[in-house]
């Protein structure tokens, strides 16, 4: 299961040797991941370069976000751009500094580039993207973050504005491929009008190490879900109850640990035959075990009863349990089709409906597991891809119906993650799958867990009905 190339890459001697000899081996970057629970200042002492064009709406939200998160802001552009950064800079000791792109200090290495393109109303404006990024892209530190903020192209007032806004996605996806070799990532955040202040928790996540395996993705921030009264930066899940299905191993177990580290009481659900493993996880995270087979028609009632009686309700639901039963459609037996659709999609629907009618509290969070196979399709996975694409649609529409209860519903589509599931893939195919991404490696279960944990926090009210890919920028279905 271990990634041989990544191991070589981690060793400075072998890394240097392979580079010097000039072996045609793609050395994957060693990703810098977060350690421990969420911090008050996830960007402590990070050098963040901020640029914008006139008409941009994000400056004050960004200024506050960066100062609170502990970043040192550098401002590119007109002097007036500095103004929104002055007050937060004074309050948190992070004064803004102007940066001339013609005379960048030699020692400056940027941990992040942040560009506000919400003012783009004409393709003419795209030139400013080139002006900002061209000189700075070589100044990125390893494991840096690029975030471009724009408006949703669908909501553009004119065809010209739509062209300019839509261009951002192509730019970001391509830039992510260029900088992935150093473990850096680029994302696009589209912000609905009036939702600008909601970008703070999203930026805290995307600019931090917790988004290490997310690359080249668009995220949409809007104001559909009721905004929570408090946004604690540390232990954001204190006092919350979280249900994680399939928690005995892999992504589920990693997620249970991360949720618990943020203060949640985690109810670890898995099949009765995985009692030993599930109990171990529950014990490690100080949570509870709930043994049930999600495909059992009685399961929704059992889960509801357990959550109500033992925990008084639930705030966070992570539908992680899932199976693969791969065969080409021509050879597939009906039971393989049925069981896959049932466990991956129908059980999710049944349980969600039961929870919504009962124990799920207002202001809750639902996170569903989709897959890039569901987005791109995969040979031999008609059943699996159908179920996972179904999740994307379910997420989108369910979100609309529960938004007024303050509940956010989102899906995660993992790419190649180093788990029991992917360890079973034949060596050659596995090796190719790993490398075919911007970051040139597979992700770890905790990468998916980090994204799930973010989508479980109060601040995730900024995002709903969306599917976020945690795939390292996989080349399939991009």
């Amino acid at each position: 299961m271990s990634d041989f190339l990544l191991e070589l890459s981690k060793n400075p001697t072998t890394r240097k040797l392979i580079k010097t000899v000039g072996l045609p081996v793609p050395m994957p970057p060693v990703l810098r991941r977060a350690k421990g629970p969420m911090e008050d200042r996830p960007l402590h002492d990070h050098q963040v370069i901020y640029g914008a064009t006139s008409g941009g709406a994000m400056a004050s939200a960004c200024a506050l976000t960066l100062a609170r998160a502990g970043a040192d802001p550098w401002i590119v552009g007109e002097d007036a751009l500095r103004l929104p950064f002055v007050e937060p800079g004074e309050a948190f000791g992070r004064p803004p500094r102007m940066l001339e792109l013609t005379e960048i200090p030699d020692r400056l290495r940027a941990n992040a580039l942040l560009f506000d393109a919400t003012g783009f109303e004409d393709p003419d404006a795209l030139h400013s993207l080139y002006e900002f990024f061209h000189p700075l892209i070589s100044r990125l530190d390893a494991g840096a973050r690029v975030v471009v903020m724009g408006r949703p192209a669908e909501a553009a007032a004119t065809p010209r504005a739509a062209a300019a806004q839509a261009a951002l996605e192509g730019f970001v996806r391509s830039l992510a491929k260029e900088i992935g070799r150093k473990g850096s990532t680029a994302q696009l955040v589209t912000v609905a009008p009036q939702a600008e202040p909601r970008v703070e928790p999203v930026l805290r996540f995307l600019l931090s190490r917790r988004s290490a395996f997310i690359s080249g993705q668009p995220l949409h921030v809007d104001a559909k879900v009721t905004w929570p009264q408090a946004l604690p930066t540390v232990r954001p899940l204190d006092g919350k109850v979280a249900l994680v299905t399939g928690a005995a191993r892999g992504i589920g177990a990693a997620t249970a640990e991360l949720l618990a580290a943020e203060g949640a009481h985690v109810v670890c659900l898995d099949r009765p035959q995985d009692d030993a493993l599930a109990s171990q996880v529950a014990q490690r995270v100080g949570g509870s075990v709930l043994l049930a087979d999600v495909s059992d028609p009685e399961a929704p009632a059992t889960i509801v009863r357990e959550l109500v009686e033992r925990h008084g309700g639930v705030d966070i639901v992570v539908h992680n349990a899932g199976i693969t039963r791969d065969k080409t459609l021509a050879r597939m037996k009906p039971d393989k089709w049925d069981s896959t659709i049932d466990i991956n999609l129908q059980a999710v629907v049944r349980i969600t409906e039961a929870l919504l009618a009962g124990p799920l509290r207002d202001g809750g969070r639902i996170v569903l597991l989709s897959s890039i196979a569901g987005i791109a399709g995969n040979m031999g996975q008609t059943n699996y891809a159908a179920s996972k694409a179904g999740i994307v649609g379910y997420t989108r529409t369910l979100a609309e119906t529960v938004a007024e209860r303050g509940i956010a519903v989102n899906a995660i589509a993992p790419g190649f993650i180093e788990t029991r599931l992917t360890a079973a893939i034949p060596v050659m195919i596995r090796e190719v799958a790993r490398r075919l991404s911007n970051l040139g490696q597979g992700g770890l279960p905790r990468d998916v867990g980090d994204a799930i944990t973010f989508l479980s926090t109060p601040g995730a009210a900024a995002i709903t009905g969306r599917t976020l890919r945690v795939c390292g920028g996989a080349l399939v279905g991009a």
Partner: protein
Amino acid sequence: MSDRKRRAVVIEGVRTPFVKAFSELLKMDTIALGDAAVSALLERTEIPRAEIDGIVWGGVILPGLAPNVAREIVLDLRLPARVEGHTVTRACASGLQAITSAVHAIERGDADVMIAGGSDSTSNAEIKLPQKVVHALAPLAFGKATPLDMLGVLGQLVPLTEVLPKMPKIAERTTGQVMGEAAEDMARRNEISREAQDEFAVRSHHRAAAAITSGRLRKEVAPVHTPDGRIVTADTLVRADTSVEALARLRPVFAKDGTLTAGNSSPLTDGAAAVLLMSEDKARALGMTPKAAFRSFSYIGVDPADQLLMGPALAMPKALERAGMTLADADLVDMHEAFAAQVLSVLKMLGSDAFARARLGRERAVGEIDPARLNVHGGSVAIGHPFGATGARMVTTMANELVDADKETALLGICAAGGLGAGAVMERVT
């Protein structure tokens, strides 16, 4: 709430001269320095020894074999055996903590007369053996060691690099950052210039020098007789002749392109200070004249990885609030000067509306402090900073100043390692 009748009052304070570490007071450890300060206090106040209930002592570098310095002072000075002694440690706020503890004990009625203060001898810091050596030596420390045990011990002590003792340094345990580096960081982040720091330092020196020349400081400094027969009578660190030009020539010590120098930072210092406190009733019964009392104390922590020494910017407003006052009501302000950059950073925060809104939840800034009211007789940059003694030095100076200058209130602020901040409001007792 303390009832007005059981108010603890400051009668008198006295300290040893503050001298540069590894110089005149080299032969006196923190206990000996404490002995000197407390015996000078006993002499000056002529407090009947039988009246003393206890000593609370503050210290940062505590002697490993006798960490309860307070009790050692009681025993060294042959005070009545029933006089209790306990030692407190709160980094550079230890001296103020000792006074806080004594005030609380008196105001609760647990004691009538207390001596509180603190001392530190950087010159006598103990060098710690690595834990590996301690564990390896265990068989020799307990019971009779066989030759085989000894061989075993030797075997565990290789490689030698792992068992060499580590030099003590003033670094944060959690971040590893040396305090000067943290202050350097604060200077950069709060945009405090080298010139502003040097000017502040020069003012501190000039004010302390003037207080020495005028005899103002003499009443709170008592001469010390050292074991090698010398008599140290005066502070040695204050430089009357320093100037902004002279300080500008010094090189930064904590960062290559930094702004902190030996001239605008407080020096490593040996010294002790002690304060006599008692209940107001007791003072009247004993015929003693109280100088001051405390309206409030405030201690608060900040993340040491952020701005390590900004604590006073939070603690001082809290102390004012508890005393029912605003900054404008404080006639005098005394701040511990760990570094000129740290004081100037805190002043900037107190004067900032933005800081008040984001960090204190108030609409308006706490306020500007008129330099004429701030550290009127200089501060730690000039006088020196024996960690545990500074709080008691500040309380002594302010108690005297309230009386001499006929003022009503004084606000104190101290920053301390670990991201701690301390504040207190003193009032004159008439």
